[in-house]
């Protein structure tokens, strides 16, 4: 199974994690590859921590074991830290520079996590910090943040750009396609600079 490429996408319910993983899955299909993906549905989507495991060329398990992700895409800083142990030592880490403090932290008056401290803990080799919010706005809508992140990760994925475009076309609403393709390009440019 050495040809399996493991991509883990994490974030918060409502951020479009599932749609991002759908783009990857669809791209696999376009290339005639097998793919196994496991998604969070149900209750956790109510603002909880969510994860999508995408196993490109996968044939059996839909879940990536800890320490086996080739790529970890996180839509949020705390989630990046929560799932970091899934990454291989030589894996690629693409992180959105965006912090959402869980409401329980405020309600229970716990220490509020700080961006700088989190970044310090996260930084390492092959770490890419993306300002997805700014790039999404530049693309035309903050709702395209998830596609910005896919674009940013695309330089590391074993999938062709045309296949990923195919995936985007299949999964975003038709009238937002242009915007999302732009979001993809802006994200991609951010990691190739």
């Amino acid at each position: 199974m050495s040809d399996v490429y493991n991509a883990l996408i994490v974030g918060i319910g409502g951020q479009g994690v599932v749609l991002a993983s759908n783009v990857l899955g669809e791209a696999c299909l376009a290339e005639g590859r097998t793919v196994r993906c496991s998604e969070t549905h149900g209750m956790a989507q109510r603002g909880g921590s969510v994860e999508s495991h995408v196993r490109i060329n996968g044939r059996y398990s839909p879940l990536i074991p800890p320490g086996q992700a080739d790529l970890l895409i996180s839509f949020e800083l705390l989630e990046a830290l929560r799932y970091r142990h899934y990454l291989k030592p030589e894996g690629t880490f693409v992180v959105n520079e965006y912090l959402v403090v869980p409401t329980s932290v405020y309600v229970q008056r716990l220490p509020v996590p700080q961006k700088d401290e989190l970044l310090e803990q996260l930084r390492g080799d092959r770490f890419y910090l993306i300002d997805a919010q700014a790039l999404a706005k530049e693309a035309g809508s903050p709702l395209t943040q998830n596609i910005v992140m896919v674009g940013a990760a695309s330089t590391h994925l074993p999938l062709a750009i045309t296949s990923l475009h195919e995936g985007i076309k299949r999964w975003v609403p038709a009238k937002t396609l242009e915007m999302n393709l732009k979001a993809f390009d802006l994200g991609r440019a951010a990691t190739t600079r």
Partner: protein
Amino acid sequence: MSRRYVLGNEAIAHACLEAGVDFVSGYPGTPSSEIIETLIRFKPSFHVEWSVNEKVALENALGASWTGVRTLVTMKHVGLNVAADPLMTSAYTGVKGGCVIVSADDPFAHSSQNEQDSRCYAKFAKLPCLDPCSVQDAHDMLRDAFSLSEELGLPVLFRPTTRICHQKSDVELGEVATEHRKGSFQKNPQQFVVIPAHTRVLHRRLNEKQPLVKETLARRGYFSTDLKGKDAVIASGIAAAYAREILPPGTSFIRIGAYPIDERWLRDVITAHERVLVMEELDPMVEEAVRQVAGSTIVHGKLDGMVPSEGELSLPLTYRALTAAGFINATDVPLAPVPAQGVPVRPPIMCAGCMHRATFFAMKKVFKDGIYPSDIGCYTLGLQLGAVDTCICMGASITIGSGIYHAGETHPIVCTIGDSTFLHTGIPGLMNAVYNGASMVVVILDNRTTAMTGHQPHPATGSTALGGETPPVSLEAICRACGVQYVETVDPYDLPTLTAAFQRAAEYTGVRVVIARQPCVIIARRAGIQRQRYMVDPERCTACGLCVRFGCPAIETTDEITTITDLCSGCGVCAQICPQGAIMREART
């Protein structure tokens, strides 16, 4: 034929279309809900319904099946408890048109109150059960399950788990059938009227059929073997996928895809090995069958502690079991790094502007020392707000509350139950509470939908599964008809009125019902309702923290500065809580 990237539940739905299903019923429940939702998206020409509960769904399907049409019933595992009554006897009566009952299990209880194993029900009822190990497998099995049901004349239980239902993969889908059957009921009391004289005969026939069931499942290829050496892994469900991925070379692989298992076949394959490791999720169903025929073959699994008996399996747990059984060396197991410590948890939370939060807030204010039996729905998240004291199963708020009352508890009892849950199994409890003289307040959290499972309609919404209009059931009229004298309906976004309603209710005895009605914010957004957001005036805010403790995810506070984020849905409740009047509607831009 086409190759597609689809969700397990979508593949299951598609398989039903390929098999020409004619009738579909079910009650929403994670991880099963997307099956019917997918069928609805196909704009079916046949009958598809969200039933009031699982028992109703199964009985509907049985009736349809007895007329000769192909039927599908979907539910989550605990829904099968509700449907257990018709299930048990449906094995006696049998079916005419193929009848497939999908009961989706949830190992690890991702979204459930327990980890029960639907396969046990199949054994209990003496029904065949299919246990898929991948999305393609689920698709293929379900497509053929209707003809299996017809061949045996029995309902077929289909048991996927969360990791099948919510897995996406590349799948080969077939053509959707265009022909549909039309039902016609042929009277046959010996089969369909289970009076004692008939049922004794039916039971004997069911027992006599069991060898045929085993033989048929074997013939249809649900048991497969890849024989290699003296060690074997025998696996079912998603555990088979994990085992296949890391199977040590030279180890045999035996896959169980259905139940009951033919013992003779099983004895032959097991005794051809020196050691076998059984990998399955939840109960040791396969393992018990294996142990009965193992003879001198050594059997490892849950019963000797090598495989966990709770939760879900995974590749790391499969490695651990293989190591414990001595099939691989500890050095063959990849190292797993440790998770970061101290990361604040992020559990699911009620949406910004959810009516439940406002209702709980007022409830706790008025009934400070109350006991709060609750029920199953988004509002169970009220646990985080200290507003949920009990939750066991659907419809068990009013009934648990009644028990607490009659036992002599003197604190006020305030039950909360959602609209869909109330219709599902709440009504008998309410009737019983009135009839038997309980004294309590029942709050119906009426958000006009079945929110937690993805916003399915129900009889009080005025719309059907396929979007048709239907006369809405009146919750007020039901409560009155159950004998409740005190029924009041309020808007939970209007905090003073809601509080006053609770205060009034507190003055009476007997069963009092307060219906808090406001659409779920997600439903409201879909319906195009837009409310102006709220903001905090930093001049007036004294950082007292009252609004923060309310717990709306749109309210943030850092360094004594409270702000409202763009998650705000404009319910306005926090503005009514703020003693300084510092929260106000944003000016229109």
